[in-house]
């Protein structure tokens, strides 16, 4: 009974719970749709255009390098389990494997794939601090 059956059982219970609660609230809740309610939320403004526009290419880059490194982590698990049997040769092999990936890692770091903020400008100079504020004094009865 225990083992994978338990995982399947909990998955079935989870899906069942989701469906039951959606169906229950479908029957219990009121339904009174208006065009405004059915529009996408945009802080009260009428929605402008479609949401599915082009997004920053950074997200796709992250997804791609994630795939690479995730496979690395997936490869790590068998080694991690057998580490004591593989001993030093195994550790050296995994270090070589890592160092190949580190080359790529340094490359993407230098290329700025991991930088999301505004671009760094080495020539940027901080604007000079403004001096003490000059307070104009007005005298009653004069014109300025």
């Amino acid at each position, binding site marked *: *009974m*225990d*083992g*994978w059956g*338990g*995982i399947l*059982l*909990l*998955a079935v*219970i*989870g*899906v069942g*719970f*989701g*469906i039951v*609660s*959606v169906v*229950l*609230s479908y029957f*219990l*809740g009121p*339904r*009174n*749709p208006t065009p405004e*309610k*059915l529009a*996408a*939320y*945009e*802080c009260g403004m009428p*929605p402008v255009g479609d*949401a*599915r526009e082009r*997004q920053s290419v*950074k*997200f796709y880059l*992250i*997804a791609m390098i*994630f795939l690479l*490194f*995730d496979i690395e*982590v*997936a490869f*790590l*698990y068998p080694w*991690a*389990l057998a*580490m*004591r049997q593989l*001993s*030093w040769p195994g*550790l050296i092999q*995994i*270090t070589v494997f*890592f160092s190949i990936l580190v080359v790529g890692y340094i490359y993407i*770091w230098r290329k700025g794939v*991991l*930088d*999301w*903020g505004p671009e760094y400008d080495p020539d940027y100079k901080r604007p000079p601090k403004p001096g003490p504020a000059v307070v104009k004094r007005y005298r009653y009865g004069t014109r300025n």
Partner: protein
Amino acid sequence: MAEIIAWVTSPMFIAYATLVGVVFMALQISAAVMVYAERKVAAFMQQRLGPTRVGPQGLLQPIADIVKLFFKEELRPKAADAFLFSLAPIISVTTAFLAFAPVPFGAATTFFGLLPEPMALMIADVNVAVLVIFAVASMGVYGIVLAGWASNSKYSLLGGLRSSAQMISYELAYGMSLATIVMFAGSMSLREIVDLQQGYWLGFIPKWYIFIQPVAFFVFACAGIAETNRAPFDFPEAEQELVAGYHTEYSSMRFAMFFMAEYINMVTVSAVAVNLFMGGWHGPFIPVEYGWIWFLIKLAFLLFCYLWLRWTLPRFRYDQLMSFGWKVLLPLATVNLLLTAAGVLYFGL
């Protein structure tokens, strides 16, 4: 037929079915308790009282909230993808429940002699529990991404995209820190990892992995908070910029399911942390038969830390989040892993 009846009425089967029911209810109740605790802790940290009206000390507030959500109107934007819009919360809540399946929460027990043989206090005793948790954690991304995409709202889509980038980035560090513990323990079964942490050094320092592997614990904690989308990494629903992120367009029970999934995920990550780093159900003064009491105490402490962090630290900037994950946590976890391996081999641990 008679065999099936005999099997179904056997004490082991009844005990197991009860256990599944108890875990399922406990996870739901823990979500409710966490909502209440979050509001109370936040209130006390800000010198307010928090919920006080429903029940004594406002204890029934989460139940009132759930009942209210059942009776709310279910809205779906016209431009939304109907099927995926309904599917997303179900995926979220299912993966949340699923992730708890391989997590043990107590020593094997016969329930005071009620059972013929001891039963492990966990739903699924698989020997690759760590791998299952890692896999289910990555499946949780689908719920959020699909919710963001299906809503066809700008805030939702941005929240979904952001959170997918965040979760996959931190998953690497998460997996690395798990691999470090797997390597150190030489086992992937959470039950065995917990049993390896019995005993004391010098008579009083418990042999928890948090003391041997503080770096792995730090990485695990950061990545766990980011995986569950909690402050200071709560970008998917950064209220000030994205309204409610991926669940902006959700209402009624569908919204409640996302909410519940978030809290159940917190419980699961904390439970895994207790098992991996804090000795699970082993502790002084309480016999191992009642070890689940220690487990609950440690779990409650870690969950309180979640709330504590949320109301103490401000949210990171998005570029800080990404560079922290990729430039600090990932190299740190990798170096820690290799150094640990070298240390284990050198000292013959």
